[in-house]
């Protein structure tokens, strides 16, 4: 393979993987800390993209739209946790699966009501709408690099938050022993609401970032949902580090799979997952 094409594929794979990481890290935090499986997580990604579309259409500036979108996403996350999710903590996983499946249906229909079923586009933000030439014929979109950088900075921010702050310590403690944390006087209800809102915001933010390159369409949450579950399982439930490694692996596997073995391109990611789970059933960084 031509080295420049190889480079492009690597960059694409990494960018795809990093976006997946944002979504999956929210999922793994929510599941690892609160023990909730949330099938509707893909819907937040979709909501993010649609929010970006509307907010950009409203006032034109992509970055302001991003900032506003994050605020809205956090609000949605907190409200959803308070209204519905907090009744699920002690319930069997199956009921969480069932309820969040119902949420998927609701979000899909709300999206249809508010935005219709057409495909929309979001313009790449002004100033970033150019490409870096790599050879005479090939170039790479700068915005895609920006996406990767944004995701990496968030990953760094999450590392700092979880490993270096009091909040992070409470999060880590809450994932190991809920009652213990409660008896220390920490308001676990508030903590969970925060974590859930954070997870929602991460997924929505990924959707917002992705909108200019992937466009905004119904059902965009579905594929992301399944893949982020695959990421969480391969990486190990509750492990953000694992989610990063797994997401990158999947991003690269999927990208190279489409180029090298197009006949089975759709299966590659799942083959990878099956292989890893058979070797290490708890995921790469999962606790046995």
């Amino acid at each position, binding site marked *: 393979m031509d080295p420049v094409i190889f480079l492009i594929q690597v960059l694409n794979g990494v960018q795809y993987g990093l976006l997946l990481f944002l979504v999956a890290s929210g999922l793994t935090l929510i*599941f690892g800390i609160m023990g909730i*499986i949330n*099938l509707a997580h893909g819907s937040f990604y979709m909501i993010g993209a649609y929010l970006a579309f509307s907010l950009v259409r409203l006032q034109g500036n992509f970055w302001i739209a991003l900032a506003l979108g994050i605020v809205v996403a956090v609000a949605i996350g907190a409200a959803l946790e308070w209204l*519905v999710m907090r*009744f699920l903590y002690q*319930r069997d*996983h*199956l*009921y969480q*699966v*069932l*309820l969040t*499946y*119902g*949420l*998927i*249906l*609701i979000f*899909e*229909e*709300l999206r*249809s*009501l508010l935005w219709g079923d057409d495909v929309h586009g979001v313009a790449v933000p002004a100033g970033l709408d150019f490409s870096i030439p790599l050879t005479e014929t090939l170039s790479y979109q700068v915005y895609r690099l920006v996406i990767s950088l944004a995701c990496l900075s968030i990953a760094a921010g999450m590392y700092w938050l979880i490993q270096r702050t009091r909040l992070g310590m409470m999060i880590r403690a809450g994932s190991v022993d809920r009652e213990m944390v409660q008896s220390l006087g920490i308001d676990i209800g508030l903590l969970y609401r925060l974590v859930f809102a954070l997870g929602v915001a991460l997924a929505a933010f990924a959707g917002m970032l992705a909108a200019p390159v992937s466009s905004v369409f119904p059902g965009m949450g579905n594929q992301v949902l*399944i893949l982020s*579950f*695959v990421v969480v*399982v391969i990486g190990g*439930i509750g492990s953000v580090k694992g989610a990063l490694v797994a997401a990158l692996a999947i991003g690269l596997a999927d990208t190279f799979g489409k180029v090298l073995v197009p*006949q*089975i*391109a*759709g*299966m590659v990611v*799942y*083959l990878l*997952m*099956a292989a890893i*789970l*058979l070797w290490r*059933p*708890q*995921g790469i960084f999962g606790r046995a």
Partner: protein
Amino acid sequence: MDRQPRSLQVLLIAGVIALAAFPLVGEKFYIQFITKIMILAMFAMSLDLLVGYTGLVSLGHALPFGLAAYALMFVSPEAEGAGLGWSLAAAAGVAALASLVVGLLVLRTSGIYFIMVTLAFGQMAYYYVHDSKYLGGSDGKYIYVRPVLEIFGWKPFDLENHTHFYYVALALMAFVYLTIRVLLASPFGRVIAAIKENEHRMRMLGFATFRYKLVCFVLAGALAGLAGWLAAAHDGLVNPEMLSWHQSGQLLMMVILGGMGTPAGPVLGAAALKLLELGFQGWTKHWQLLLGGFIVLSVLLIPRGLAQLFEWKRRG
């Protein structure tokens, strides 16, 4: 051990009689609608064997279902119906074999990981079928003539007739129901119920639990294959969507909603979901909103599924 409360037995018998009598008064549309429900009920019962009784939550149960459907398509000639007996056996056989292979691999995991690996294998099968030209690709393929049963030149029924098909489906559904009841009362059935309750203790007692879970997985797959054969025969069309995770997910919904581990729970769940769909669709274009709302409310308000409304207690 599996003596059910009087009220439930009466209800079941009444239900069967009602179902048997329905075609005498119902219109074609509803006869076919209920046939679809019965097929889904069979499918759901086979999943409940895994989920409700063994504690194995599979998000890939569409795999044996869809593969059996494709098997029927494969053996159906273009101009005439395939032989009923052997095409049914072939379909169930394909489903069972696929479940054996998948089971050998996925049963090494448990819990959420099990859910995900079953999803993965389901997706693999979906993508394989979806990307295969010879299987019809994303459009799928048609089955032009329904299977035919001919015993020495005599045809006891004609599946092309929707009322005959209805009764065959009813008979098969009853067969699946009874098979599962007998299975659960047998020593094998007690073992898998106990595995769900405390697998570690079962191993301590000397049971090779992996083998029992595998057999259960294969049996559930075979029964799903029966449903898949019927679905393909009924619709006359097989496509990759029959193997999608949506299919598996919706099925899981039916089982959970109806009440897992109860004899008629899956049937209730299948019926409820389909009837609600029909009902809500009649009201508004955005019926999924109502269905979603219904599901959310019922999880919050009815902890153990619809069967709980009838207060059927599980006896261990």
